[in-house]
């Protein structure tokens, strides 16, 4: 287990370094920031001085080294628009994003489990096909459009819930439901497929043969095995969920880091964009690392690969 842990830790670290490298080259590609930072009337000497100050006159590998060592200390430079550190601006928004993402994730997983178990335990085949059909349909709808439909129904027409901003629980309902329904759709279909797979296994047939009740077979025998594929997908899916959060935050003007990144892009505020993308990737890698560990505990076979 310790070796497995160490291997995954090395992998996660390499990934973070890779993301930082990509960020470095993107920032360099964006061209000379001196023109953006100085007034238009600046002289050639002034621009040269700023370039030296920013270290842009040094060889690229020295710049790379400086960027990496600074980034690893959490220094992505200051925002080009306001006097504040880029990382600070991003971290300020993290709680709002976590609140939205985790609520949607929890809600989605819980309801998907409830739905999948109901589908398995009931003998009603029509219920199953209706639920699967709804899930299929929901997966074909872009998050932002679904959010707008909810706004049209619950904010504009019925006037029950607010459509913008963050505040009490009533502000959380629409964006969280928007994201959660996407999660439910995905996990409901995955769980159903995983259950279907288990249904054909020998151990299930044995359990039936010795007269076990269906309730017990599904909950005690099939559920733990059906969990495994779910854990793998959950890690990868979080990336999609994070992407969905960026869009959802914009739809509902939710003050999270996704909205900050989108605004920073339109203001050409590169340090903030890069800090945001790196922080998001870091969260994603950290979660995937945890998921891997969980997987190693749930399924001992995986540790020896």
């Amino acid at each position, binding site marked *: 287990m310790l070796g497995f842990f160490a291997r995954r830790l090395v992998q996660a670290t390499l990934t973070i370094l*890779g993301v930082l490298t*990509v960020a470095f080259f993107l920032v360099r590609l964006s061209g000379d920031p001196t023109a953006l930072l100085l007034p238009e009337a600046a002289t050639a000497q002034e621009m040269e001085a700023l370039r030296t100050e920013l270290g842009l006159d040094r060889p690229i590998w020295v710049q790379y080294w400086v960027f990496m060592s600074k980034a690893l200390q959490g220094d992505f430079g200051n925002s080009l628009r306001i006097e504040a550190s880029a990382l600070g601006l991003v971290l300020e928004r993290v709680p709002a994003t976590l609140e939205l993402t985790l609520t949607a994730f929890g809600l989605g997983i819980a309801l998907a489990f409830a739905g999948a178990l109901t589908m398995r335990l009931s003998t009603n085949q029509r219920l199953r096909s209706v639920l699967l059909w709804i899930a299929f349909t929901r997966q074909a*709808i*872009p998050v932002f459009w679904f959010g707008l439909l909810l706004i049209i129904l619950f904010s504009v027409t019925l006037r029950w819930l607010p459509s913008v901003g963050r505040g009490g629980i009533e502000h959380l309902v629409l964006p969280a439901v928007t994201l959660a329904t996407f999660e439910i759709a995905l996990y409901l279909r995955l769980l159903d497929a995983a259950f279907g797979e288990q249904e054909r296994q020998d151990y299930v047939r044995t359990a039936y043969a010795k007269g076990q009740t269906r309730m017990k077979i599904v909950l005690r025998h099939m559920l733990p095995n059906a969990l495994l594929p779910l854990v793998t*997908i959950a890690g*990868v899916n979080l990336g999609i969920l994070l992407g969905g959060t960026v869009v959802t935050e914009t739809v509902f003007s939710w003050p999270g880091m996704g909205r900050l990144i989108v605004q920073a892009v339109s203001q050409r505020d590169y340090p903030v964009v890069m800090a945001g993308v790196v922080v998001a990737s870091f969260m*994603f890698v950290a979660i995937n690392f945890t998921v891997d560990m969980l997987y190693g505990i749930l399924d001992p076979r995986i540790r020896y690969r």
Partner: protein
Amino acid sequence: MLGLVVVIAFIVPLLPSYDPYSQDLAAGYLTPLKSSSARFYLFGSDPLGRDYLSRIALGTQVSLLIGFAAVLVSLAIGVTLGLIAGFFRGAVESAIMGVADLQLSIPRILFIIAVTAVIGPSLLNLTLLLGFTSWVSYGRVARAMALTLREREFVLSARTQGASSTWNIRKHLLPNVLPQMVIVGSYELGLIIIIESSLSYLGLGIQPPLPSLGLMISEGQTYLGLNPWISILPGISIFLMVAGTQFFSQRFTTEGSNHVRIDRAA
């Protein structure tokens, strides 16, 4: 379903009323089935009084074209890298799969947003970015298939007769993985259409004056109380396209192998 949308999107331009660009400010915000003094608007009009049916048809065409182009780019990259990784194994395989893992660890939308911030939004940039960031699912499936195919008799016999690796990959591996790639591609097409419309919604995708479904939905958000149809109608077109592609790919994968299903979710 996809066929229906394609047919409609390409038939509407043949209608005499087709006119996605000319403005009539007096006839703005019309709800569907209304007519102004000048003409009848089946789908209503946008805030600048442009015929919404025409704009949706053109926007749908643009989405489909970008989607197909991006799928072709990513399919070409993914198949090539996947087959090379699976056929040669060793260090080449580790390097390619390492890049794939790295790419999966940056959420796709965020990565495209970051690059767009630097190189600027344009039709070509968008298509290429979507293509470059979507090759991983093809690469993984192609590699998995190449791993078993390279041990098959026809590949071994070709090799003993002195066939080169390139020849083997091109003549023996490629034809065997292509059908599977088309299935992955049809699923990816739906995903790419969703991502493209999301980026356009954020203002980072297709740029005006070219109509784009995502941007039209975002414009409509300001007028939800006045005329919600401006946001509703383009979304229906996106939904039909994506549902169509998923329907198509699902019909082939329900009996298909398990790794395809898992890779699709990835």
